[in-house]
């Protein structure tokens, strides 16, 4: 059968968030398995897994993304396939529920690898993506994390919610 592996981020994740991560990753594996069963496509399976985690605020991607110094969400994603080593990616995108799906569109529908910022968002509109409001993507945990970051004098670099962490 197919082999599918997922990760949900690395760093100094507080123990209180372990179960959320476990639940989210098991859901992602199940989503990937269902997608593979119904499409026989490993591409669809991996996208389904990531989209599942992008929808889950336990993870720093999509809904639940952390905030920059301006209090905004800027997301990034990369999609790559191994047959021809084709790749598509986006950076600095806003108001998109599934950046991984947009990265795949870049790979499949443009001659380029990486689109950025407003132009990536413009491409999303042209590709039929629906915009989602900031309120959907921005969680209270992410706002608190930024507040704590600013109070701490911007040291050290933090990413995971509520803890000095990475990824």
């Amino acid at each position: 059968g197919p082999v599918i592996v997922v990760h949900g981020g690395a760093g100094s994740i507080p123990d209180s968030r372990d179960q959320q991560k476990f639940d989210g990753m098991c859901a992602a594996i199940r989503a990937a398995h269902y997608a593979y069963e119904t499409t026989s496509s490993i591409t669809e399976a991996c996208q389904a897994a990531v989209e599942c985690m992008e929808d889950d605020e336990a993870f720093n991607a999509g809904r639940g993304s952390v905030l920059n110094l301006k209090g905004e969400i800027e997301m990034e994603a990369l999609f790559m396939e191994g047959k021809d080593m084709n790749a598509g990616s986006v950076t600095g995108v806003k108001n998109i529920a599934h950046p991984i799906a947009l990265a795949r569109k870049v790979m499949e529908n443009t001659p380029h690898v990486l689109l950025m910022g407003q132009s990536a968002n413009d491409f999303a509109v042209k590709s039929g993506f629906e915009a989602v409001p900031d309120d959907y993507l921005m969680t209270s945990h992410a706002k608190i994390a930024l507040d704590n970051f600013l109070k701490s004098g911007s040291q050290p670099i933090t990413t995971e919610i509520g803890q000095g962490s990475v990824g």
Partner: protein
Amino acid sequence: TVGAIGMDVNGHMVSCTSTGGITGKMAGRVGDTPIPGAGGYCNNEVGTISTTGHGDSIMRYCLASKIMHHLENGNDPNIAAQKACESMSSRVGGSAGAIVISKDGKIGIGFSSPKMAWAFLENRIIHYGIKHGQHLTTDL
């Protein structure tokens, strides 16, 4: 950051990585995630990889590319992932983690950070963990 990698029964591979970045980053900051060879890499002739961690370190070290080189040199995927993450931390600082599938379908999981959340499916059993040495299972 989240990631998914996969290989189908024909040996076709995919790598996906998605992130919100880091709390308090400067507006306009680009991390490792969208960069092939850093946040992910995929080559049916070698393997597929997705990384997570200190993006600015991962970019400077080209972490996914380094893991790919380890695979090409015949390293086991677990060793390739762990060795590259530790080497990155030692050389440029920061910490990272990676998930790997080699072209022969072997799975690798490694991280130099205190934790990395991971999971995979094998024979309708989901294997998962987050701490070093932790390995839990549940039914699909």
